[in-house]
């Protein structure tokens, strides 16, 4: 399985890029079809010597954690290309090529089984994004894109040191072997915090989240979509691929740090979102709050495992994973909806709108669905993950659940309040009066996302099914203490 879409498109070959994106999607869907959900082992592995003298190899493979993310990435890529079809007039082929290269790199990140390969792809992905924000972004794009690049680069260099340290210790850079590498508590602590910095910037967690609102606001719609839907997931993916299994003891010992930061993200950032005047900024903050659930779900498992409630831990883990995928769709849909409005009005300011429902009824219906999903309405995929995380964290600590539960109020507050101000009411000004409803192209991508959102909201089973084995494996073996001296019982 190679979805490294390194193809570059010259000229105005949008069709070609759409074709490539569709082929990539088809490949990743067939990956889903042929995926064996009964095992946690890596599947569809591919191995080639890259730098054998240094123990670095080009090895790819997927398990229940990464496979859904790859499908998500490929789908989002198709949508982004459709969305940018007419909107991007400045160097469109370069735009499309950047997205294809980026999709290839992102799929690679999710599939990489070699730490150096992972790092190379993880950093390499910054370059197309840097250009996308910088070239096609809004007025403050240069500031935003530099901030984005430097923040992420800052985070990942510590991760690199940790990876090098372990690579030297075990003689090669295989991630799966790192899972079994015996490490003292002290080493684990350093590595855990190095990873935490790297991944927390990407997620982003409070207090290193400040690049996100800037980058989101200035990025073109496609850039925001990819940022929110996929890039943020890389941080949380990093937690389950690296932090939890490599440094289980440190992660357990310091889980309160992550849980605390997650709850701050949920509550404080939720409040910040309420105060936003800019629609994109509002969604950006809401993304941070939603990602707080993912990290909460991942780290609350330690408390649950200690109290013996393995089922609750499983539910928390699945809740976090489900939230990752679901947020990918919902945030993409939200940004696309704002993009639809922005393309017409060239404003993201909530106060410039009002009464959109009168001129764009179809759009208003879609937007309503996505806003509800963002607020976590039962029946949409936004509800499932959050509900599971709250449910299981209740068993760990009442206050975790209580604080996390405030999101139901805050989320509804900022989402619906924004919706009310933008869509309902009388027509605010003549610009709104001139709005055209969505065209076929826009209907297409919004419909795809609406279907997926509802589908997973009503029937989460297929997604849970493919993740099941990997979740069980992680809980039973992955996070077993490395200090007891009995390493590798499960492997």
């Amino acid at each position, binding site marked *: 399985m190679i979805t490294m879409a390194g193809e570059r498109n010259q000229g105005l070959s949008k069709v070609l890029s759409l074709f490539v994106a569709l082929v990539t999607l088809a490949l990743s869907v067939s990956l889903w079809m042929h995926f064996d959900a009964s095992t946690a082992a890596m599947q569809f592995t591919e191995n080639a010597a890259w*730098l054998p003298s240094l123990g670095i190899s080009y090895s790819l493979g997927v398990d229940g954690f990464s496979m859904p993310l790859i499908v998500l990435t490929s789908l989002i890529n198709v949508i982004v290309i459709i969305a940018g079809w007419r909107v991007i007039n400045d160097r469109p082929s*370069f735009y499309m090529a950047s997205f294809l290269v980026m999709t290839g790199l992102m799929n690679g990140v999710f599939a990489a089984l070699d730490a150096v390969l992972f790092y190379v792809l993880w950093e*390499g992905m910054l370059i197309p994004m840097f250009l996308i924000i*910088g070239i096609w972004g809004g007025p403050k794009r240069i500031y935003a894109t530099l901030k984005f690049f430097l923040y992420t680069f800052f985070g990942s260099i510590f991760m690199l*040191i940790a990876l090098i340290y372990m690579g030297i210790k075990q003689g090669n850079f295989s991630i799966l072997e790192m899972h079994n590498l015996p490490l003292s508590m002290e080493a684990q602590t350093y590595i855990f915090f190095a990873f935490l910095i790297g991944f927390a910037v990407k997620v982003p967690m409070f207090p290193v989240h400040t690049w996100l609102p800037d980058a989101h606001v200035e990025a073109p719609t496609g850039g925001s979509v990819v940022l929110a839907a996929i890039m943020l997931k890389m941080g949380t993916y990093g937690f389950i691929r690296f932090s939890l299994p490599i440094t289980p003891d440190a992660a357990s010992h310091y889980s309160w740090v992550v849980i605390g930061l997650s709850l701050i993200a949920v509550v404080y950032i939720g409040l910040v979102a309420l105060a936003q005047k800019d629609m994109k900024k509002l969604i950006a903050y809401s993304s941070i709050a939603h990602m707080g659930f993912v990290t909460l779900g991942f780290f609350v498992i330690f408390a649950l495992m200690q109290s013996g409630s393995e089922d609750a831990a499983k539910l928390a883990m699945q809740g976090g994973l489900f939230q990752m995928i679901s947020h990918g769709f919902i945030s993409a849909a939200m940004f696309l909806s704002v993009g639809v409005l922005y393309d017409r009005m060239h404003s993201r300011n909530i106060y410039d709108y009002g009464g959109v429902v009168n001129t764009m009824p179809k759009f208003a219906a879609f937007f309503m669905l996505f806003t509800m999903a963002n607020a976590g309405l039962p029946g949409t995929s936004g509800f499932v993950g959050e509900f599971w995380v709250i449910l299981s964290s209740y068993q760990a600590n009442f206050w975790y659940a209580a604080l996390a539960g405030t999101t139901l109020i805050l989320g509804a507050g900022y989402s619906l309040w924004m919706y009310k101000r933008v869509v309902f009411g009388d027509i605010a000004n003549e610009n709104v009066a001139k709005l055209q409803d969505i065209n076929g192209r826009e209907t297409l991508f919004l419909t795809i996302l609406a279907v997926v959102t509802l589908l997973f909201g009503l029937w989460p089973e297929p997604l849970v099914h493919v993740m099941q084995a990997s979740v069980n494996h992680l809980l039973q073996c992955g996070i077993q203490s490395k200090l007891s001296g009995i390493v590798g019982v499960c492997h």
Partner: protein
Amino acid sequence: MYLTPDLSPLAAEFFVLIMACVVMVADLYFADDEHKLTYWLTQLTLGVAAFITAGHLATEPQVLYQGTFVVDYMAGILKIAIYIATMISLLYARDYIAVRHFLKGEYYMLTLFSVLGMMVLVSAHSLLTVYLGLELLSLPLYAMVAMERNNGNASEAAMKYFVMGAIASGFLLYGMSLIYGATSTLELTAILNSLGHLGQNQLMVNFGLMFIVAGLAFKIGAVPFHMWVPDVYHGAPTAVTLFVGSAPKIAAFGMMIRLLVDGLAPLLHQWQSLLIIMSILSMAVGNIVAIAQLNLKRMLAYSTIGHVGYFLLGILSGNNEGYAASMYYILIYALMTLASFGMIVFLSRAGFESDKISDFKGLAKRSPWYAAMTMFTMLSLAGVPPFVGFWPKLEVIKAAVHGGFVSLAVFAVVMSLIGAFYYLRIVKTMYFEELDEPAKPIVVASDVRLMMIANGMAMLVLGIFPGWILQYCLTAFGL
């Protein structure tokens, strides 16, 4: 009976020497305005020399001529890298110097003599040959910097370069004489062996070592001996900077290995601590001061200082893995220098130097290809994967971690973050900013253009397939 020694290991050196003389004479008799013959003769010389050296590539080190000269794998690889770097820099330089009216046969002759000096230097096996090679390398460079006679900056740079270079040579010589005094030999292996039982002379050797390290630091431009670097890089004609920044750095690496490792390895702990300080200072000063530069050549000069800091990281870790990492670093660094200064040469015209950062404004619109090549080079210099500059950084940091210098490694990566900022600024200028005035077309010969694109693409291709150059470096140190 006196036996004539076998001179075949010196074939490449003799060939370059003879050809340098031929070039000098040929230029007097057959010179046309463009000095085409001399140019091609020089390129041919370097090409043939590369073949000769490649033919003699030895895996077992041979020490020859009463211990003054060594032929080993490292020397071979370094020499070939020097030829290639010189060939590329001559190609880039040709049109630049022609337009500025200092294209003379001497330019090529001086280049060849300098190359000869580098060859002697990387193969040196006694303090005498080290010094001989170093001077032969440096003197032509001083003249080349000054070749653009009517340019005040260039003359100033040449003066500075010469004075600083002379001081550095003085340091080095003083250190060498102290070592000689303590060990009563010039031959590196003999020095190595006698260092173990010095008795009272230990202090003298340590003192000598200080001077040798200081002299080396001058030559490679490590902080606090870096003052000449920005002025020379900035003042010298870009085509000369291009040469000064590439091939001699490779030779300087050879010199460091010969002196510190082949000769003074038992003093590892002494020179290690000196190098650590220089490495930290170089990384800090180079990367931080570069942010404030508006002139691209000056910025790249400070970036060189920063890179020297990383390069030292490998050597100071004191094991073969680290030396190989440093060798890899310097080879890749030479390639990146060629690309970055090459781009400045490339965009400049008669009367326009194109060496300010703002001259790169809107390049992405004017010529997407060259902008992309420059972007590759800058990101590579910044050490962003998947570009090639990432790998040597990874290697030296790995060597530092392996050598037990974890905090130094952390410092190095933090500095590379600062470095990323000013390299990205070039990318930003090219891609996100518009040119104020209508752009003038970029006129260059097709072979230069081809080389430029190959050079830029090498950043990406070597980044994706980093193995083979690294393999040479590992082999050179028996890994």
